[in-house]
Protein backbone atom coordinates (compact mmCIF):
# COMPACT_ATOMS: atom_id res chain seq x y z
CA UNK A 1 0.00 0.00 0.00
CA UNK A 2 1.10 3.53 -0.79
CA UNK A 3 2.21 5.39 2.33
CA UNK A 4 -0.47 8.04 2.60
CA UNK A 5 -1.94 9.16 5.90
CA UNK A 6 -4.79 11.61 6.25
CA UNK A 7 -5.64 13.31 9.52
CA UNK A 8 -8.02 13.64 11.12
CA UNK A 9 -10.16 10.78 9.80
CA UNK A 10 -13.37 12.31 11.13
CA UNK A 11 -14.20 15.84 12.19
CA UNK A 12 -17.30 17.77 13.17
CA UNK A 13 -16.97 21.53 13.19
CA UNK A 14 -19.20 24.57 13.41
CA UNK A 15 -20.03 26.93 10.59
CA UNK A 16 -17.56 29.80 10.37
CA UNK A 17 -14.64 28.05 12.05
CA UNK A 18 -11.33 27.37 10.29
CA UNK A 19 -10.42 23.77 9.58
CA UNK A 20 -7.16 22.23 8.38
CA UNK A 21 -6.84 18.73 6.96
CA UNK A 22 -3.45 17.11 6.62
CA UNK A 23 -2.10 14.65 4.08
CA UNK A 24 1.25 13.02 4.80
CA UNK A 25 3.12 10.74 2.37
CA UNK A 26 6.20 8.60 2.76
CA UNK A 27 6.68 7.87 -0.98
CA UNK A 28 8.56 11.07 -1.90
CA UNK A 29 6.09 11.61 -4.76
CA UNK A 30 6.12 14.98 -6.45
CA UNK A 31 2.38 15.39 -7.05
CA UNK A 32 -0.27 15.62 -4.35
CA UNK A 33 -3.99 16.24 -4.76
CA UNK A 34 -7.05 17.06 -2.69
CA UNK A 35 -10.45 15.79 -3.84
CA UNK A 36 -13.89 15.94 -2.34
CA UNK A 37 -16.53 13.26 -2.81
CA UNK A 38 -20.23 14.04 -2.73
CA UNK A 39 -23.24 11.93 -3.70
CA UNK A 40 -24.05 12.33 -7.38
CA UNK A 41 -20.77 14.11 -8.17
CA UNK A 42 -18.10 11.45 -7.86
CA UNK A 43 -14.70 12.85 -6.92
CA UNK A 44 -13.89 16.44 -7.80
CA UNK A 45 -10.47 18.07 -7.66
CA UNK A 46 -10.06 20.95 -5.20
CA UNK A 47 -6.34 21.80 -5.46
CA UNK A 48 -3.17 20.03 -6.39
CA UNK A 49 0.56 20.50 -5.92
CA UNK A 50 3.38 19.69 -8.32
CA UNK A 51 6.20 20.43 -5.90
CA UNK A 52 7.12 22.25 -2.71
CA UNK A 53 5.37 25.64 -2.71
CA UNK A 54 3.91 24.90 -6.19
CA UNK A 55 0.13 24.57 -6.20
CA UNK A 56 -2.76 25.10 -8.58
CA UNK A 57 -6.54 25.17 -8.47
CA UNK A 58 -8.91 22.42 -9.42
CA UNK A 59 -12.56 22.62 -10.46
CA UNK A 60 -14.01 23.32 -6.97
CA UNK A 61 -11.37 25.48 -5.29
CA UNK A 62 -13.57 28.31 -3.96
CA UNK A 63 -13.47 28.45 -0.16
CA UNK A 64 -10.31 26.33 0.09
CA UNK A 65 -6.61 27.08 0.32
CA UNK A 66 -3.62 24.75 0.36
CA UNK A 67 0.00 24.79 1.39
CA UNK A 68 2.96 22.54 0.78
CA UNK A 69 6.10 23.51 2.66
CA UNK A 70 7.61 20.00 2.58
CA UNK A 71 7.48 17.24 -0.02
CA UNK A 72 5.69 14.91 2.37
CA UNK A 73 2.91 17.20 3.62
CA UNK A 74 -0.02 18.82 1.81
CA UNK A 75 -2.47 20.83 3.90
CA UNK A 76 -6.03 21.77 2.95
CA UNK A 77 -7.58 24.68 4.83
CA UNK A 78 -11.18 25.78 4.96
CA UNK A 79 -10.81 29.38 6.12
CA UNK A 80 -14.42 29.65 7.29
CA UNK A 81 -16.28 26.38 7.04
CA UNK A 82 -19.77 26.27 5.53
CA UNK A 83 -22.38 23.52 5.47
CA UNK A 84 -21.78 23.07 1.73
CA UNK A 85 -18.27 21.89 2.59
CA UNK A 86 -19.61 18.87 4.44
CA UNK A 87 -18.05 16.07 2.44
CA UNK A 88 -15.52 13.28 2.37
CA UNK A 89 -12.07 14.58 1.46
CA UNK A 90 -9.45 12.41 -0.21
CA UNK A 91 -5.78 13.05 -0.68
CA UNK A 92 -3.91 11.44 -3.58
CA UNK A 93 -0.30 11.21 -4.69
CA UNK A 94 1.48 10.38 -7.92
CA UNK A 95 5.14 10.27 -8.84
CA UNK A 96 5.23 12.58 -11.85
CA UNK A 97 1.65 13.52 -12.63
CA UNK A 98 -0.10 12.69 -15.86
CA UNK A 99 1.71 9.52 -16.88
CA UNK A 100 1.91 7.76 -13.55
CA UNK A 101 -0.51 5.94 -11.32
CA UNK A 102 -2.28 7.87 -8.56
CA UNK A 103 -2.88 6.43 -5.09
CA UNK A 104 -5.42 7.60 -2.56
CA UNK A 105 -5.51 8.01 1.18
CA UNK A 106 -8.32 6.65 3.31
CA UNK A 107 -10.32 9.86 3.39
CA UNK A 108 -11.48 12.39 5.98
CA UNK A 109 -15.17 12.73 6.74
CA UNK A 110 -15.90 16.38 7.57
CA UNK A 111 -19.25 17.54 8.89
CA UNK A 112 -19.98 21.24 9.22
CA UNK A 113 -22.94 21.98 11.49
Amino acid at each position, binding site marked *: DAGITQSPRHKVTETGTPVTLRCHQTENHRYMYWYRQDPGH*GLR*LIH*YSYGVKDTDKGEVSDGYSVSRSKTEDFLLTLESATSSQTSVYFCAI*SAIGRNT*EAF*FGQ*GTRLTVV
Partner: protein
Amino acid sequence: GIQVEQSPPDLILQEGANSTLRCNFSDSVNNLQWFHQNPWGQLINLFYIPSGTKQNGRLSATTVATERYSLLYISSSQTTDSGVYFCAVHFGNEKLTFGTGTRLTIIP
Protein backbone atom coordinates in the same frame (compact mmCIF):
# COMPACT_ATOMS: atom_id res chain seq x y z
CA GLY B 1 -15.87 20.55 -20.99
CA ILE B 2 -14.19 17.22 -20.54
CA GLN B 3 -16.63 14.34 -20.06
CA VAL B 4 -16.09 10.97 -18.43
CA GLU B 5 -19.21 8.82 -18.51
CA GLN B 6 -19.68 5.45 -16.88
CA SER B 7 -22.36 2.88 -17.50
CA PRO B 8 -24.45 1.39 -16.15
CA PRO B 9 -24.91 3.61 -13.08
CA ASP B 10 -26.20 0.66 -11.05
CA LEU B 11 -25.83 -3.08 -11.47
CA ILE B 12 -27.27 -5.86 -9.30
CA LEU B 13 -26.05 -9.42 -9.91
CA GLN B 14 -26.18 -12.84 -8.34
CA GLU B 15 -22.96 -14.24 -6.95
CA GLY B 16 -21.10 -16.08 -9.68
CA ALA B 17 -22.31 -13.87 -12.54
CA ASN B 18 -20.05 -11.95 -14.91
CA SER B 19 -20.24 -8.23 -15.57
CA THR B 20 -18.88 -5.56 -17.89
CA LEU B 21 -18.53 -1.94 -16.83
CA ARG B 22 -17.90 0.76 -19.38
CA CYS B 23 -16.08 4.11 -19.29
CA ASN B 24 -16.37 6.57 -22.18
CA PHE B 25 -14.25 9.72 -22.38
CA SER B 26 -14.51 12.69 -24.66
CA ASP B 27 -10.86 13.34 -25.57
CA SER B 28 -7.48 11.65 -25.95
CA VAL B 29 -6.00 10.48 -22.66
CA ASN B 30 -2.51 10.12 -21.22
CA ASN B 31 -3.60 7.92 -18.37
CA LEU B 32 -6.64 5.88 -17.35
CA GLN B 33 -7.19 4.15 -14.04
CA TRP B 34 -9.92 1.94 -12.59
CA PHE B 35 -10.68 2.08 -8.87
CA HIS B 36 -12.93 0.10 -6.56
CA GLN B 37 -14.44 1.98 -3.64
CA ASN B 38 -15.38 -0.60 -1.04
CA PRO B 39 -18.30 -0.26 1.40
CA TRP B 40 -15.91 1.33 3.94
CA GLY B 41 -15.07 4.12 1.51
CA GLN B 42 -11.53 3.07 0.67
CA LEU B 43 -10.37 3.66 -2.92
CA ILE B 44 -8.48 0.64 -4.18
CA ASN B 45 -6.38 0.73 -7.33
CA LEU B 46 -7.43 -1.92 -9.81
CA PHE B 47 -5.72 -1.04 -13.08
CA TYR B 48 -3.51 1.62 -14.58
CA ILE B 49 -4.34 1.12 -18.26
CA PRO B 50 -3.96 4.00 -20.74
CA SER B 51 -4.17 1.45 -23.58
CA GLY B 52 -4.30 -2.29 -24.19
CA THR B 53 -5.50 -5.12 -21.97
CA LYS B 54 -4.51 -6.21 -18.48
CA GLN B 55 -5.70 -9.01 -16.23
CA ASN B 56 -5.51 -9.54 -12.50
CA GLY B 57 -7.22 -12.69 -11.30
CA ARG B 58 -10.97 -12.47 -11.96
CA LEU B 59 -10.68 -8.88 -13.15
CA SER B 60 -9.50 -7.62 -16.49
CA ALA B 61 -9.58 -4.29 -18.27
CA THR B 62 -9.26 -3.10 -21.84
CA THR B 63 -8.73 0.45 -23.04
CA VAL B 64 -9.18 1.37 -26.70
CA ALA B 65 -7.74 4.86 -26.65
CA THR B 66 -8.45 5.58 -30.33
CA GLU B 67 -12.16 4.93 -29.73
CA ARG B 68 -12.17 6.64 -26.33
CA TYR B 69 -13.49 3.92 -24.08
CA SER B 70 -12.38 1.44 -21.48
CA LEU B 71 -14.06 -1.72 -20.19
CA LEU B 72 -13.71 -3.45 -16.85
CA TYR B 73 -14.66 -7.14 -16.74
CA ILE B 74 -15.47 -8.94 -13.53
CA SER B 75 -15.92 -12.71 -13.77
CA SER B 76 -17.45 -15.09 -11.23
CA SER B 77 -18.59 -12.22 -9.01
CA GLN B 78 -18.23 -12.47 -5.25
CA THR B 79 -19.99 -10.47 -2.55
CA THR B 80 -16.68 -8.75 -1.80
CA ASP B 81 -16.82 -7.24 -5.30
CA SER B 82 -19.70 -5.01 -4.18
CA GLY B 83 -19.05 -1.30 -4.09
CA VAL B 84 -18.58 1.54 -6.54
CA TYR B 85 -16.24 1.30 -9.52
CA PHE B 86 -14.70 4.49 -10.85
CA CYS B 87 -12.67 5.21 -13.91
CA ALA B 88 -10.45 8.29 -13.92
CA VAL B 89 -8.46 9.90 -16.72
CA HIS B 90 -5.74 12.47 -17.31
CA PHE B 91 -6.47 14.70 -20.32
CA GLY B 92 -3.00 15.99 -21.04
CA ASN B 93 -2.55 17.83 -17.74
CA GLU B 94 -1.93 16.94 -14.14
CA LYS B 95 -5.57 16.72 -13.16
CA LEU B 96 -7.16 13.31 -12.75
CA THR B 97 -10.85 13.54 -13.74
CA PHE B 98 -13.31 10.97 -12.43
CA GLY B 99 -16.47 9.50 -13.83
CA THR B 100 -19.52 9.30 -11.57
CA GLY B 101 -19.11 5.58 -11.02
CA THR B 102 -21.00 2.29 -11.34
CA ARG B 103 -22.52 0.92 -8.14
CA LEU B 104 -22.24 -2.88 -8.16
CA THR B 105 -24.23 -5.01 -5.74
CA ILE B 106 -23.58 -8.75 -5.60
CA ILE B 107 -26.35 -10.79 -4.02
CA PRO B 108 -25.39 -14.08 -2.31
